[in-house]
């Protein structure tokens, strides 16, 4: 049973428009959430994170929103650029003595068209 789900395997957006990537989770113990970006033939790279004590975190064109009651987070990219085309993974963790184990979603492939 996947604890972190990205229900949209792909998303296509026009350059300059907003990209919204969604992620749902089932484990209410998750208290830290991250988004990673992955280009082909490269490892994932950290993009942005949010703690459960917040409902929004912003970094330039990237904003992550967290709705704890709905167990849902989303990543907004505004404006979208062709270089944003990549696979995006959301991940979640529980801050416990087991270390920072991340549980990943299945990923969403974003395609930004010029």
């Amino acid at each position, binding site marked *: 049973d*996947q604890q*972190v789900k*990205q229900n949209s*395997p792909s998303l296509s957006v026009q350059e300059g428009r907003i990209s919204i990537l969604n992620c749902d989770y089932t484990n209410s113990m998750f*208290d*830290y959430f*991250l988004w*990673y970006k992955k280009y082909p*033939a*490269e*490892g*994932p*790279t*950290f993009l942005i*994170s949010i*703690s459960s004590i917040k409902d929004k975190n912003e970094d330039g064109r990237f904003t992550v929103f967290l709705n704890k009651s709905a167990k849902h987070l989303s990543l907004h990219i505004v404006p979208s650029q062709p270089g944003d085309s990549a696979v995006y*993974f959301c*991940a979640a*963790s529980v*801050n416990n*003595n087991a*270390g*920072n*184990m*991340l*549980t*990943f*979603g*299945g*990923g969403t492939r974003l395609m930004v068209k010029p």
Partner: protein
Amino acid sequence: DAGITQSPRYKITETGRQVTLMCHQTWSHSYMFWYRQDLGHGLRLIYYSAAADITDKGEVPDGYVVSRSKTENFPLTLESATRSQTSVYFCASSVRRGQDTQYFGPGTRLTVL
């Protein structure tokens, strides 16, 4: 500034053979991780290590063995490769326990025939 490296980048092997994937990091990070990436599953944790000589199982450890005799190296061994182990393998590291960013290597694409 090498960061975290993996070798080989590509490997083709046959069922039943032993294969070792290497991971090396230059940051002296305490934590290291091995993930596999499969379509529809995202990244799944195989094994992790909190420090040299300390390792523990992740979500999908069966068929894999790890060791960590030095802080900077974390090899992953498939003792008897199976076709279901065809995947892309990523190594990652992080500074400390807690909600720390993990830094990933470039990955090894393994094909088991």
